């Protein structure tokens, strides 16, 4: 079968396969991919999914037309399936001839397997099972070469597509009145001061698993009584018990102290390292003139949770898995970077949790 024909069918099933090689070169295309693609597209083009679209021209767009679309899919599926099975069979033959497969394979009859596979094709879950274990292994190893779609890739569009741009409140705060300016400076200064903390958290907290691993390591170190970091020393000043104060108030005082001590940040660094806090979220929301109740209705997050998130009342917030989702949803609604918001917030939350743990 020539590449042009194959290309046409690949397009119909939306399979992304490199067809640029020689005419002779086999395509790397797995049976499971073909099956999945077919089922997915077939599900889409069934009558229920199409009804919104065919209703306006119901009288003119017949059942036959719809069926033709499905027939085309089926033709593509059968053709590509046949191609892939033949290719695998030919490969097995080649391996056998080269002595890579042991003699027991001689019992294997190519014709049988192809029919079996084609029969099971549309229904079975395990199409790539071609009887013999040795052959399976070979096919599995081939699958490894063909298949891997690194799980992280879907995340990239979230942060990679759009150029780094001024964060939600970068500009508006500069424009506000004097009080806001002071707060802006305080935040800026605090961000500058927070940079040295970076070594404790991952430089680029893009993979939360890594972040969690490191945190676990840190916890272990702390437990063993390793020399405290600068950050921990500063923490101690926060820990000084004043039972009347809420966490929120403590954080504010901490920030004020930092503001007094540090100098304002250059704009670029601010962009990259600016932490998203509860009050950052609140300000973004207020800037857009969105009330908390409106926010609650839109996001499905309860009024109470929203208030507690904004005020960073950690003790009143739900468990960390759910909390992360809350922060992400909140940030997304306001067009703030949801990953950064969640990472920043959860880092602070976990720090608080650890402090709770070591207190008791």
């Amino acid at each position, binding site marked *: 079968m020539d590449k042009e024909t194959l290309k046409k069918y690949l397009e119909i099933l939306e399979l992304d396969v490199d067809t640029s090689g020689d005419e002779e070169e086999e395509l790397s295309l797995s049976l499971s991919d073909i099956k999945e693609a077919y089922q997915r597209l077939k599900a889409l083009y069934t009558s229920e999914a199409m009804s919104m679209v065919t209703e*306006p021209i119901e009288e003119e767009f017949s059942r036959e037309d719809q069926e033709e679309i499905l027939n085309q899919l089926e033709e593509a599926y059968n053709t590509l399936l046949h191609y892939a099975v033949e290719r695998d069979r030919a490969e097995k033959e080649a391996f056998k001839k080269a002595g890579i497969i042991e003699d027991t394979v001689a019992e294997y009859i190519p014709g049988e397997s192809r029919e079996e596979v084609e029969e099971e094709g549309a229904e079975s879950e395990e199409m790539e099972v071609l009887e013999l274990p040795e052959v399976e292994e070979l096919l599995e190893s081939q699958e490894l070469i063909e298949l891997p779609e690194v799980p992280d890739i879907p995340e990239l569009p979230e942060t990679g597509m759009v150029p780094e741009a001024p964060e939600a409140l970068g500009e508006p705060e500069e424009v506000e009145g004097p009080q806001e300016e002071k707060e802006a400076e305080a935040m800026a200064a605090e961000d500058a001061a927070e940079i040295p903390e970076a070594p404790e958290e991952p430089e680029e907290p893009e993979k939360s698993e890594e972040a969690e691993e490191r945190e676990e390591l840190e916890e272990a170190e702390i437990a063993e009584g390793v020399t405290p970091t600068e950050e921990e020393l500063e923490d101690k000043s926060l820990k000084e018990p004043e039972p009347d104060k809420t966490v929120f108030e403590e954080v504010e005082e901490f920030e004020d102290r930092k503001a007094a001590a540090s100098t304002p940040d250059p704009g670029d660094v601010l962009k990259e390292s600016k932490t998203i806090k509860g009050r950052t979220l609140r300000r973004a929301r207020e800037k857009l003139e*969105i009330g908390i109740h409106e926010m609650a209705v839109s996001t499905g997050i309860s009024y109470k949770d929203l208030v507690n998130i904004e005020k960073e009342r950690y003790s009143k917030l739900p468990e960390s898995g759910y909390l992360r989702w809350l922060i992400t949803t909140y940030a997304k609604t306001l067009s703030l970077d949801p990953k950064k918001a969640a990472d920043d917030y959860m880092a602070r939350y976990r720090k608080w949790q650890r402090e709770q743990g070591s207190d008791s």
Partner: protein
Amino acid sequence: MKSEIWAIGGGKGGTGKSFLTSSMGMKLALEGKRVTLIDGDLGGANLHTFLKIKKPRYSLTDFFERKIPLSDIIKGTEIPNLRFVTGDIRSLDTIGINYAQKLKLYRHIKNISADYVLIDLGAGSGHNTIDTFLVAEKMIAVTLPEVTAIENLYLFIKKVLFRKLNMLLGEHGLKNAAKNAWKERNTKDIKNIRELIQHIKDISPEISAIVDKTLGDFKLYLIMNQVKKDQHIETGFSTKSVINKYFGIDCRYMGYIRYNEFFWKFVKQSEAFRPITSTGSTSQEVGVIVQNLLEDKQVKLSEISNG
């Protein structure tokens, strides 16, 4: 160097054409391309609202009525590389321009010095809107995942194709073939545009080949706006499929924009470019659409079902 003209239409009002025109234009400009936006919208041009610019002194009305050259009407924006022409209070349809004036406009548009010219056609599917749509290198239709919007989209496409067929047949000396056939559709038993096309193809094998080729090469870029659930995204695929089958053209699904409850708050509150420079999903989705249009790459169902 010639510019590439993109026309954004689709028939129904309120589907997001103005928003998409301005945001795609901004994205392109921010990537360093030279972009000129043209507002051809009905009832008080909207583009300047999205661009946060006060209505400029000259508009297309002045081009038609006072013969001011287009180059004098094009105005800069805060984004370098992004310029724009505001439309008229009345749309291109009711403005009463004659054929010669229209051709003059198209000539000027084609001579605009830019990498990309994006024309917001607004609602309506009168002759002038349709003709402007056909001038574009990339014809882009925006619709909503809603029966009435899709219905209007079909109507829009029908009119565009009918017009295109007329023009095509005119080039082959059969100027009124399509029109007359349609006029006499009852006697000729022509119930819809498909049968009309078949009727025209029956004229001769050469005409049949020409019509087939023209339709096959006719690319329509589809965008689904205000998507509220995955099923709506999938509606884009179904719509594309039906359009291809029914009209015989090459409709390509280029992307979707999710419904954002606070969208208008963003537009009202922020600087012009916030929706585009922010990291929010709307901005990213527009970015994906622009990229897809530049690479002529469609959305894949596999990207969505795995979600």
